[in-house]
């Protein structure tokens, strides 16, 4: 794998991991807010 492809691969990997983390955190925050406010 060329260094350019490898760099893109690693950057995308990092973006995906951040996205998953963001999704989990936001999901948790939303569920907590939902439970606290609406239920």
């Amino acid at each position, binding site marked *: *794998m060329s260094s350019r*492809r*490898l760099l*893109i*691969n690693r950057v*995308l*990997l990092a*973006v*995906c*991991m*951040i*996205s*998953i*983390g*963001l*999704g*989990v955190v*936001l*999901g948790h925050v939303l569920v907590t807010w939902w439970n606290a406010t609406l239920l």
Partner: protein
Amino acid sequence: VSRFVTLLLTAPRRRVQALSFLLMNSYVLQGLKAIPCPGLNCYACPGAILACPIGTLQHFAILRQVPFYTLGVLGLIGVTVGRMACGWLCPFGWLQELLYGMRDRWHLRVWNISESYGWLPCFFLIVLVGIVPLLTLEPWFSKLCPMGTLEAGIPWVVWSAEIRAQVGWLFVVKLAILVAFLLWMMRTKRPFCRLVCPLGAIWSPFNAVSGVRLSVEESSCTQCGVCREVCPVDINICEDADSSRCVRCMECVKSCPESAVRLLGA
């Protein structure tokens, strides 16, 4: 039936596909529906244990929220193995390959698909999975999805009298789409993957930069065409080893008489 069984048991990939279908619909492993399924498998199937990623994306479009988690998981699969999940894990891909394998027995003429229609999955992804649910607040791709009809629509209509009573024109349309695709699958290699599948459209761009890739040694390649013959999506891997349509099934790697096609890992 015996041809189906032979197809199931001869190649290890078929066993992985069968195992994947059984696991995704194992029913007993409940509680995993927060995890996106690495393939087209209906969330509403009575035995399904994972979430349909396309259904989730539509759900988020309706809620007007960004599906960070689902996009992240799909991206992680794409960046790691490209479209390999299409070739090894997707239950609908498996069904299409099994039906295409029946064409010789039934003496069916093969219908080829022009490569110029390769943009259609992107169109369905943007329009039916993104824009239409956003505007109509209804998940229209899921409503018409032939896999949904096969795995969820038909079983529920057969199972529940209450749901049977609600059957209307939409179910007839869904059924017609499913039958059309099932007939088409017997004559064409993976027509749904090549012309419709929005999940494949999401993973396609990752093929060029994914950790797992194919490479063709041009000096060894004799252009014999065996790779295209065995390819489930009918591509000539010698011309483009990074093809966005390649499902990384490895059939070309196994079949190349000159061992010119190889698997590379990052």
